[in-house]
């Protein structure tokens, strides 16, 4: 569950500052899932970063209860010189999850074979996404922040992701942002 209280976030624009969030007070993800629609550049990803806590609002407070994920969907946060396994180990440690279990579940889900034990910099972009998605499914979050995961991997992998999401929806809540009505 994420509580926003009087949250304001602005960005510098050619003329003055542009407000992305203007004095928002609400509660998200306490039950079920939330979809947030917006055009490109409306501030959806920024909103997710603020919800997740990797970016701070200009004003107001954001309170998170339970384990909230990082914005899932692109493969940020990996260090290229470490292997997939080492990157998973790091993530498991900072989320205080069982390290061996996370590594095992990620390896199984990502299906990238022995590349799992190679430095991430040698991965193709598809493999990176597989690893990122596998890792986010391997740690049990109470709230998932999802950023546009429309085209990830091949069709078989996409189905796997959808199934994993469905299954997660039973226990956790999702906050999904997209610019496509269909995704939501």
């Amino acid at each position, binding site marked *: 569950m994420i509580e926003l209280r009087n949250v304001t976030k602005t960005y510098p624009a050619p003329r003055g500052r542009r407000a992305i969030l203007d004095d928002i007070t609400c509660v998200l993800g306490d039950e079920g899932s939330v979809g947030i629609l917006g055009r490109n550049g409306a501030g959806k990803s920024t909103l997710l*970063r603020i919800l*997740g*806590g*990797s*970016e*701070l609002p*200009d004003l107001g407070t954001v309170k998170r209860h339970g384990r*909230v994920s*990082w914005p899932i969907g692109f493969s*940020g*946060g*990996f*260090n290229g*010189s*470490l292997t997939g396994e*080492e990157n998973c180990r*790091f*993530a498991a*440690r*900072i*989320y*205080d999850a069982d390290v061996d279990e996370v590594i095992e579940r990620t390896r199984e889900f990502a299906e990238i074979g022995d590349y799992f034990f190679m430095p991430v910099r040698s991965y193709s972009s598809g493999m990176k996404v597989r690893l990122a998605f596998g890792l986010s499914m391997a740690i049990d979050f109470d709230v998932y922040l999802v950023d546009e995961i429309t085209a990830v991997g091949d069709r078989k992998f996409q189905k796997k992701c959808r199934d994993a999401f469905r299954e997660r929806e039973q226990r956790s809540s999702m906050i999904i942002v997209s610019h496509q009505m269909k995704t939501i």
Partner: protein
Amino acid sequence: MIQALDRQLNVIWALTLRETRTRFGQYQLGYLWAFVEPIVWILSFYLIFALVDRPSPRGMSLFGFLATGMITYELFSKTAEKVSLAINVNRALLFYPQVRPLDLTFARWLLETATHCSVFVVIMASELMVTGQSLRISDPLSLLGGLLLASALGYGVGLIFCMAQVIFPSLEKMRGPMMRPLFWTSGIFFTANSLPLEARKILMYNPVVHAVEFVRQGWFTSYQAKWASLPYLLGWVLSLLFIGTLLEREIRRRIEVT
């Protein structure tokens, strides 16, 4: 509160393990390289001193004199260097919400301090073994304090550069040239007691000299750090940390995560 502290320590520890891996992991011999650099420095200056027949200060072996100075200085300067790059190198990690800019600098501080303290122990112990002397630390508190304050000075300088670089990226290029004079003026090649009055007056403004003096007083039985001042050194450390953490508050909203 305690839970939050525990979580943060958890993050710092994970970062430290990861830094260890990225700093030493990609080379063969890994951690050994941490020892190679100071040893090469010490031995080259040992050779130069021996060639020009310059004696070491009274009561110190030439090797011990150079080693105490060099390792203390390296502890300061390497900590400053590594900490100053903490955000630039690990920006991708800020992607994880619980990783904060200060955690990145803490992890590097921890790793550098642990590394150089081990270097100190190993190099000084090997001198004792080669010369067949027994270990006698004359003032353990002064030795430990000197090393820790050198590391804290390095952290303060590194922290300020690290945060200021977020606003002025070109500072990264200036750090090297700005630090270079310190190599010659930090007491690696002289002791405060052996300096002429005029030179001492000026050189004692450099806080690193004070740290080196404390380390030497701690290690050598016959050396008294008459001119080193703990309040002066602490004053530097606290001011640097104050400015550094102030800058952190200013930049934490400005960092752009990929």
